């Protein structure tokens, strides 16, 4: 589904990604872990097409297409979804109008008619239930005045609405209490099928108790320095990142 080869990216001239290689297949869950500043969120942003980052080398092929040549909106239409670490508040734009625009532009992309008002509201109702998102929130402005937990739930609700092929969850667990974490993770699991894939970016192991990864990668200094099975997350939880840092730095003679 997703093949990343030797991906390099920088922001304001500073190189953050220094050659990422990653293969994600349908039905898989990949966890990307790593210490602060290792480039985890940058990778997520670059895959979603954030214009703040400049790709300086490498390639990303998504279902046979050159992902990096696409606009952020087309990446979304093709099935890439980024759950933001910090969902953006948009005062004055209602959740309903926001979602209607998103859903209908995707339909347009595939040559389909816009959803009727009643079908759209039915869809909203159905998907809201997946993350137990309060009806009141969908009538408010996008993320405005939402609590941390509500924002993250709202991200997963949007994911449910758009039915992506590849979901990238960027620190979806940050700022969540245990109940909210369970709801959000439960939502992600409900949406999981054999045809879609998930990349979970997290600093801590606790989210992985709820969303079981098939692979765990450790990102450090802009490279994936270690890949393993779910057991790697447990080792990291116990031993921290220092041993990996040391191993990597020694290897490179730094």
């Amino acid at each position: 589904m997703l093949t990343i080869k030797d991906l390099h990216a920088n922001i304001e001239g500073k190189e953050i990604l220094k050659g990422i290689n990653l293969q994600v297949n349908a039905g898989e869950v990949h966890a990307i872990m790593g210490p602060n500043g290792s480039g985890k969120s940058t990778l997520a942003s670059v895959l979603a097409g954030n214009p703040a980052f400049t790709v300086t080398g490498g390639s990303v092929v998504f279902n046979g297409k050159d992902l990096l040549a696409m606009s952020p909106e087309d990446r979304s239409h093709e099935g890439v979804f980024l759950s933001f670490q910090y969902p953006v508040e948009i005062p004055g734009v209602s959740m309903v109008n926001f979602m209607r625009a998103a859903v209908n532009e995707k339909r347009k992309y595939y040559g389909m008619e816009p959803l009727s008002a009643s079908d759209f509201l039915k869809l909203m109702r159905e998907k809201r239930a997946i993350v137990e998102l309060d009806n009141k929130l969908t009538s408010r402005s996008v993320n405005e005045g939402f609590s941390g937990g509500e924002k993250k739930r709202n991200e997963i609700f949007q994911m449910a609405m758009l039915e992506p092929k590849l979901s990238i969850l960027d620190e979806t667990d940050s700022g969540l209490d245990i109940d909210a974490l369970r709801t959000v993770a439960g939502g992600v699991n409900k949406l999981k099928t054999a045809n879609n894939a998930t990349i979970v970016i997290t600093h801590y192991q606790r989210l992985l108790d709820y969303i079981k990864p098939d692979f765990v990668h450790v990102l450090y200094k802009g490279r994936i320095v270690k890949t393993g099975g779910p057991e790697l997350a447990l080792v990291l939880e116990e031993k921290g990142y220092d041993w990996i840092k040391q191993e990597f730095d020694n290897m490179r003679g730094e």
Partner: protein
Amino acid sequence: MSSIQQYIDLYESCSSAVDAGSTAVMNLPRRDALERLRGAKLPSRGDENYEISDLEDVFAPDYGLNINRISAANVDIDEPFRCDVPNMSTSLFYFFNDTYYDDNIVRPALSAGVIVKSLREAGETHREILEKYYAKIAPMDDAQVALNTLLAQDGLFVYVPAGVVVERPIQVVNLLRAESPLMVNRRMLIIIEAGAQARLLVCDHTQSPGVKFLNSQVLEVYVGENSVFDYYDLEESSIDTSRVSSMWLRQAAGSNVLVNGMTLTNGFTRNNYRIDINGEHAETRLLGMAIADGRQHVDNHTHISHNAGYCHSDELFKYVLEDEARGSFTGKILVAQGAQKTQAYQSNRNICAESARMHTKPQLEIYTDDVKCSHGATVGQLDPDALFYMQARGISCQEARTLLMQAFMSDIIDGIRLEALKDRLRHLVEKRFAGTLAQCRNCLGTSCHGKMKSIEKRKN
């Protein structure tokens, strides 16, 4: 030589025709206006309060005037409403250029004692009211006011007697249509007596694209004790229309006034709003929006004077400027000595493309201790994070910009106290933004360009 001279010459050569086409009360102050205009100048760019607008320039071209009041033939009054403000359930009145137009228009009767009619006609039927109020608060030492007083022959007269509540909004549609350059001089006299309530919506439309118009208007508004008055002013003219409008509003104790000036399409616009709060416990809300692109020019100059204590004023103006558009906002708030417990708030927020220019100038003059006043001004661009967030959800850059700009204007629209107009305006603003973007693919925002650049760079 000042561009005023050509108007003095014109008046002197046909003063009897000017008088004949008007009414005695309007003719009376013309002498005084003429004397004041001799040797006077209109404000030029750089004069105090005219940082970007040059009225000498605006009044300089040779415009025709309809001094002989040749009546309008074949007026297609339905034309602007097909797309713009239909089914508002208002009492509709029309002006064709600066002439009141009343052919075969059927409308429901106004509430008892309420008068809405041609000012010229009112000069005959309600002369005593005009004598008391006409040309009394718009000061003749303002050259544009004097020029308007010299040349205006007709206009709108609104009179709401004490205690009468006018349920149905009054809508006045000003149509500009001509085959050659035309100057119109409009005058409005609005009297809302004590305890009365009325809502007035004035729409400016230009129906002759490519023809130059100069629309010079003066409004005098009296808002009595404990009365409520809403004034909505919507300009949808053309790039070749210049408008200079000044409103002089006086409000008495306990009154509640809302003024909302909206410029959706125009050429050159200078609006002056002068509000004097002369009695205690009055409330004033002054709102404005401007959406400008191409070479549109929108200059709003506001002056709220708190002359009595215990009053509340709240002012908010918002601009979205693209391309080479020019915007200006001046917000003067004066709190006179002794106007204790005044609360006056002002805010001017602007979204301005790099190629556009916005001038903003808050001015607070406070001569009393016990007041709460604040002002703020911001000039910026659309939030790039919000744009990316929307794009990441599949919303195109264009659509995302439209949604964000509409959202930016939402508090101006929400301030409207007329549900049908609120809905209508939301739609108009949406169309305006969507149309702008469709017309001009080159003026998409910087952040979308940024995106394109980063992709191109990678390909190289």
